[in-house]
């Protein structure tokens, strides 16, 4: 009995709207609702909904035998909630079968693990809370954004209490070793490491519909034959991929859904592999060795490193400027600001600023809303500038900021007061036009001082300032009108 572990990543970022520098300080809404909704709806209809329906079907057809795992980023869940609640419902149905495991990750699908320990921990907690809320599971296995992993990050994850973590079976890490075993963290051996078999995973995720590929077309028979060719001693094959592979990266017309539909039957019938979830792997298998990863790796591109997100100066600048703010957030309770903080961290923003695709000519334009990396950078920095202004207003640090916050507060109060007076003047001038008699009455009452109270009660809810001041104001108004009348 050997193990086949299927894991799918579900993520959609909140894309920012075009945010010009004139908006800084004036406009605090950052998101392109139309794009976000239309992309999410499109992917939901083409991928998430049909794929989930198929998965549910397969689980019912092979009860207890077809098992798989998902990681759904917190921002994706937020978007499902907003734009496609039926997708959440279909994931919940999958969760209820007991054959599906949900993994923990950072709520914002962020790169925070590279920067800030505390913030990392908090974000994972946010995500776990969401998973508990929606799928009634508490994750035991962790997967980091884009499978980013290093010994250091692994140790932190172990500290948080996770049993296992997923990452890429990168060649430059493994060397002669095979990804088809269970490994453990080099610092804390308690944390088990599952490595992606990138050859077989990418055969499905990237090469499935590539007509230039020598193995095209890929059939389940062929794929299972490859599984069978794997050395009998090797214990596990980890197939990790984006869930959008089904129906989005590989369109329905390529036959990807039929491939998926036929896979479990063929595997169970013609091979000695069984389907397992990551936590079952961690429980059942013994790690064969520690895997040494001194520098962070990811599952992206040929290099399997971080250069897609932090490879150039623009990305590093934006990333550093963002996390310079982290300590201020500890004092913030405002939910809107916290939400923006979360969405600012989404790794995709940094991905859009990548310039390395200049060289190989392959433009990573998949759902990229920007025409160039510079566009992406400027837009991001404009938004970040505005965010920092708001943050500083809430969490004044320097003397100037405090003064500013104070003055802003006073200004706001005065504004309110002026509004109130304006309304009052309007009311009175209306009165003088419609029924001068009543106006006389009113002005007398105001001058008698006792009237102020009555005015206040009549203007329900709107006033709370000093009645006396108002009265004086109105008196002036009244006499003015009178003299004009003469």
């Amino acid at each position, binding site marked *: 009995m050997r193990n086949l572990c299927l894991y799918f990543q579900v993520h959609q970022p909140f894309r920012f709207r075009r945010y*010009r*520098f*004139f908006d*800084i300080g004036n406009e605090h809404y950052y998101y392109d609702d139309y794009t976000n909704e239309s992309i999410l709806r499109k992917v939901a209809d083409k991928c998430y909904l049909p794929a989930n329906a198929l998965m549910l079907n397969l689980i019912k057809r092979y009860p207890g035998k077809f098992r798989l795992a998902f990681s759904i980023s917190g921002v994706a869940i937020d978007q499902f909630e907003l734009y496609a609640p039926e997708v959440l419902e279909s994931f919940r149905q999958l969760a209820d079968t007991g054959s599906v495991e949900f993994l923990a990750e950072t709520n914002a699908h962020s790169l925070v693990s590279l920067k800030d320990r505390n913030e990392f921990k908090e974000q994972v907690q946010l995500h776990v809370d969401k998973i508990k809320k929606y799928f009634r599971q508490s994750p035991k296995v962790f997967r980091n954004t884009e499978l980013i992993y290093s010994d250091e990050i692994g140790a932190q994850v172990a500290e948080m209490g996770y049993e296992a973590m997923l990452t890429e079976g990168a060649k430059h890490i493994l060397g002669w070793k095979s990804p088809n075993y269970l490994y453990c963290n080099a610092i804390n051996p308690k944390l088990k490491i599952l490595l992606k078999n990138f050859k077989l995973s990418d055969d499905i995720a990237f090469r499935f519909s590539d007509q230039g590929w020598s193995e095209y077309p890929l059939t389940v028979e062929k794929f299972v034959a490859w599984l069978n060719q794997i050395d009998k001693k090797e214990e596990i094959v980890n197939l990790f991929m984006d869930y959008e592979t089904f129906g989005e990266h590989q369109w329905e017309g390529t036959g990807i859904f039929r491939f998926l539909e036929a896979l479990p039957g063929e595997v169970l019938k013609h091979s000695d592999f069984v389907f397992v979830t990551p936590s079952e792997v961690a429980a059942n298998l013994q790690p064969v060795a520690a895997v040494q990863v001194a520098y962070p790796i990811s599952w992206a591109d040929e290099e399997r490193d971080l250069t897609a997100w932090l490879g*150039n*100066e*623009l990305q*590093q*600048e*934006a990333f550093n400027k963002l996390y310079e703010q982290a300590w201020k957030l500890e004092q913030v309770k405002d939910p809107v600001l916290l939400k923006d903080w979360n969405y600012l961290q989404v790794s995709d923003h940094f991905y859009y600023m990548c*310039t390395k695709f*200049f060289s190989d000519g392959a433009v990573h334009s998949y759902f990229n809303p920007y*025409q*160039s990396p*510079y*566009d992406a*950078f*400027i*837009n991001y*920095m*404009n938004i970040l*500038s505005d965010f920092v202004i708001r943050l500083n207003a809430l969490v004044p640090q320097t003397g100037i900021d405090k003064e500013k916050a104070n003055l802003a507060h006073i200004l706001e109060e005065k504004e309110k007061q002026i509004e109130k007076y304006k309304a009052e003047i309007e009311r009175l001038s209306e009165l003088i036009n419609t029924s001068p008699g009543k106006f006389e009455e009113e002005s007398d009452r105001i001058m008698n001082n006792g009237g102020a109270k009555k005015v206040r009660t009549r203007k329900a809810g709107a006033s709370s300032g000093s009645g006396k001041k108002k009265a004086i104001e109105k008196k002036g108004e009244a006499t003015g009108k009178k003299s004009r009348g003469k």
Partner: protein
Amino acid sequence: MFGWEFPPHISGGLGTACYGLTKGLSVYNDLQIRFVIPKAFGDEDQSVIRITGANQVELGTKDRDYKAFLEKIQFVEINSNLIPYTDPDEYYRLVNQDKSGINQYIHTTFSGTIDFKGGYGGNLFQEIANYAIIASVLAAENDFDIIHAHDWLTYPAGIAAKQVSGKPLVIHVHATDFDRSGGNVNPGVYELELKGMHAADKIIAVSNLTRETIINKYGINPGKVVTVYNAVDPIDSDLSLSYENRIKDKIVTFLGRITMQKGPEYFIEVAHKVLQKMDNVRFVMAGSGDMMVKMIHRAASLRIMDKFHFTGFLKGEDVYRMFALSDVYVMPSVSEPFGISPLEALHSNVPVIISRQSGVSEILKYAIKVDFWDIHAMADAIYGILNYKALSEMFVKYGRKEVEEMRWENSARKVRQIYNTLIK
């Protein structure tokens, strides 16, 4: 090679490009270039090529049937006072000068040499025709393998030389009238361009943008049109470093002819937008042109003249001084076949913002590209470069490297390959 201008007597990019290309070609020892311009002033750089002024070529001493030549090149004799290619400075001078030139030409023709004024004056079509006559004479008297004509003014000369000698003709399109006029094409110019393109054995376009224009607007067989990008000469680094910026404000620069083609009005609108948000920035519009007065009025009515400066036409060293002072260079051209100046700016370590409607945007990676009409994007890009240090640092670091790799030798190699296919 036929060209209308050559440094130092230039009005724009054409002369610079001709010079760069011929210099690039000079590495080939088996290649000799004779460059014919209407009027040789004598101070041209002749170290690498031989410059011939059409005004020095003698006609009258030889017994020759000029009528036959004239018949062959009949079509260039357009009796017209059109002023199609207006170099603005030249134009202003022209307006104030007497128009007796026409008669003078007729007198001097056939009497020995023809007098050329050069530039882009009012009798341009007459000069073009005369220039073509000289070309046919040169073609008959000299031995050569290839005729290479730069831009429409010299196409008749190229055609004439080809008709006389039967040698292959290469036409080098630095701009079309669609670029210069913004759509209101001068039919006379269009006709010359069209004839040149049809007569040519090969057409060199300075960008794919221009190549598309040639194919779509002039109906030329795509197989005949090849793109060869321009390049830039490395400038003396001492020169650009020797100017220190004494002004504390950031400087955003527009440099070029102030004509519709270059989009100066967009630059002003953008300046206005940026100045609403930023205080420590100044805008400079360097150059002159027929739209300059209008631009000054516009800037004044926007009340930004305290931060917006006009320098007039800049020449030679002043250009580098201007670059050295600049923090951003903006080229909002409405239609720019190539556009060498952004490359020069990058050479001087100035980040650039260029319009997508320019040929140079096809090859520059480390530059911000915007549509010329999108003043919001342009303003945002300027703000971004001035405020987010990482961006300008990146452009300076990689942009300079990038332009240093764009050498005239590379362009020349491609031109040489084209020659080789034609000579066989």
